[in-house]
């Protein structure tokens, strides 16, 4: 369809103002400062902020009311994400709220709902995602971590990799192989694993940012109660796909992009060529204009997906992939222009400056270490959550029938 009719909801602007004012009032100053300078946020500070949102019910605002959510429309959720991004708040950690929560309330048992959903809503539990393995990246379905039924337990053996925040997590939702006889997509199950169970070992992976948020997780005869199986044994792939579509839309944080653009504009004012600010340089003016068009395009793709979601109940698989491809490419483009500017300050990367309380001398603009961290970290944006290449395959197969 060339044009989709979008009904304007007049209450949305009031909601936007409410979120903005709430963030101004409730977001701890220290957390805001750390986030704005791109410093590492300590777990207790992250927890404190997420609990503030959780108490308000906003962490899971888009969940249906019957599962303790506020039944937000997709538009409301986007506004919420934009506003907390603009406020300089740390992003919502998606593993519980966006990923496993909806899987549990859609496919889980009543006991599982009772046990886990409130912890996610209130941010009392930190979750991580056990998907990728050393041999199963883009080809996720070839995963090998095995779960063998033994009495009332599954015994899990194997290894996961690229597990963000596993070192902070209380629980992992994990794809395991319960059957290797048929097609590889069959025989995968969705298991909830307590990270404190004996036999679980978490090992850090230091990224090119020099920071630690990624981990390897090893399972050595880990006994997981069979009641922690979500849905049916062997149907895990279906749940994983359900969740991946959510992850792709969630991966495009346009509020964060707007912040990068604000930071870029300030950098252009303070950075000079021959004493003259780059903001007066036509080449950079053009680059900024190009990025602005790119940002509007991604926002429009997002709005279009919301209209589809409203009409059809869920974003289309294709639209989610399109958004992920273009959104992450734009993110890298913005962060590249930022590095182009920082080149004039010698491209200094003081990783120490990312630690709260460091009192060394900052070289160049105050937020440069945080921005370079982002530049490096977001090289992974076109890799994580299904690489750009995989997204294109999804569109080729799913939309173009190739």
């Amino acid at each position, binding site marked *: 369809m060339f044009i989709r009719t979008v009904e304007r909801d007049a209450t949305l602007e009031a909601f936007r103002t409410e979120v903005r004012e709430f963030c101004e009032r409730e977001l701890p100053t220290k957390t805001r400062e750390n986030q704005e300078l791109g410093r590492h946020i300590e777990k207790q500070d992250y927890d404190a902020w997420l609990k503030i949102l959780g108490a308000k019910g906003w962490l899971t605002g888009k969940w249906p009311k019957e599962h303790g959510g506020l039944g937000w429309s997709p538009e409301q959720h986007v506004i919420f994400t934009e506003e907390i991004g603009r406020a300089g708040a740390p992003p919502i950690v998606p593993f519980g709220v966006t990923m496993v929560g909806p899987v549990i309330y859609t496919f889980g048992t009543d006991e599982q709902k009772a046990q886990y959903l409130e912890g996610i809503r209130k941010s009392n539990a930190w979750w991580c995602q056990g998907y990728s393995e050393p*041999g199963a990246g883009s080809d996720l379905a070839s995963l090998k971590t095995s779960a063998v039924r033994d009495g009332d337990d599954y015994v899990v053996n194997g290894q996961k990799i690229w597990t963000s925040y596993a070192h902070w997590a209380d629980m992992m939702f994990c794809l395991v192989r319960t059957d290797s006889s048929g097609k590889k997509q069959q025989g995968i199950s969705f298991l909830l694993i307590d990270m404190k169970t004996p036999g679980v070992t978490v090992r850090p*992976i230091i990224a090119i940012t020099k920071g630690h948020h990624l981990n390897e997780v090893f399972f050595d005869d880990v006994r997981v109660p069979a009641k922690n199986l979500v849905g049916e044994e062997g149907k895990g792939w279906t749940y994983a796909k359900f969740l991946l579509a959510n992850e792709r839309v969630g991966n495009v944080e346009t509020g964060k992009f707007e912040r990068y653009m604000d930071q870029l504009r300030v950098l252009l004012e303070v950075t000079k060529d021959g*004493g003259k600010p780059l903001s007066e340089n036509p080449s950079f003016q053009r680059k900024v204009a190009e990025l602005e068009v790119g940002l509007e395009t991604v926002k429009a793709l997002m709005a279009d997906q919301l209209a589809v979601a409203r009409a059809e109940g869920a974003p289309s698989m294709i639209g989610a992939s399109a958004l992920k491809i273009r959104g992450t490419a734009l993110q890298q483009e913005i962060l590249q222009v930022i590095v182009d500017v920082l080149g004039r300050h010698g491209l200094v990367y003081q990783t120490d400056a990312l630690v709260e309380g460091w009192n060394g001398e900052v070289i160049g603009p105050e937020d440069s270490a945080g921005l370079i961290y982002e530049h490096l970290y977001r090289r992974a944006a076109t890799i994580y959550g299904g690489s750009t290449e995989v997204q294109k395959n999804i569109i080729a197969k799913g939309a173009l029938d190739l």
Partner: protein
Amino acid sequence: MSAFTSEERQLLDDSLQDYIRSKYTFEHFRELTAADEVDGFGRAEWSEYAELGWLGTSLPESADGAGGGLTELCIVMAACGRGLLLEPFLSTIVMGAGAIEKVGTGEQQKILSEVAVGKRLLAFAHVEPDAGYARDYVRTVARPEGEGFVLDGEKGFTLHAQSADTLIVSARVGGDAGPVALFLVPANAEGVHFRPGPAFDGRRGAEISLSGVKVGGDAKLGASDADQTEVISGLIDRGVIAASAEAVGAMTTVAEMTLEYLKSREQFGQPLAKFQVLQHRIVEMNLACEEARVLVHAALEAVDTGSPVAQRMVWNAKVQTAKSARLVGGQAIQLHGGMGMTDELAIGHYYKRLTMCETMYGDGDWYLSQITAKG
């Protein structure tokens, strides 16, 4: 003209590559970068390079150098890129020694003998905080006092400045409108203050404050009182081509590593190298390497033969190299997936070195603007 025959160039290249393969492995690189100290490179390695004759490759025979041209120096620089060498070739040999050789008096040229044997490290402290990539922006002032000068000003982040024995500092003589001159400033002179920090790729450098730094009359590089802006511009062109050669070395190596990875990594039941879309991608990476290599080569020929269009050729090489570096570095990470994002794999370190080379002395866009402005 070069003092090197084709065979000698090949021998130089072979010896560099042998050394990297056998001694300057990625593990060795990581050990050197992990050591939390001022230099961030190996002093012992630097002495070894002196013994192997690499430091003197392009230095004049009068300084016990081999008398090679820019081409020979860039063979060394390409190897720096291939092996991610951390040592200060760019600051000491390309820029520092380049400046002394170009304008130094007979007495000052003697420093080059110390450089050749690895006993003196240099840094070229020209860029200033508000200069950006402009070559003629100098606000540091050298006020004549008695027989000598007093220097005041701020210099921007300069690679390896904190490790250098001698800084080569640009300053305007007399006042804001005075002619630009270069000064040899001992790094430990009173009034020289360093603000050290790591660069994007982990190599160390520092911002420099000069406040009331007293130097003798013999500290002024060369005997001429004429403005040295053009000389400095020529030196920066030398830096541009050297950093481009380094980038060619780095991109070629990381493209080779990526090809090997595509051949060995299996997904969907076959090596990644069997997917046509990835084949075309790695072909593009190789084409980009070749484009950069041939333009750097052409520029070196132009410089070494004194071609009237040498500067334009250097700038062309810079523009293409920056473009190639960005493509190859970025795709090397992309094609390695999560592995490319880890600090323990070489790929990310090549990405970072390539980004440094891209921005050293001006990025591709800046040179395009300069080419456009010159008409």
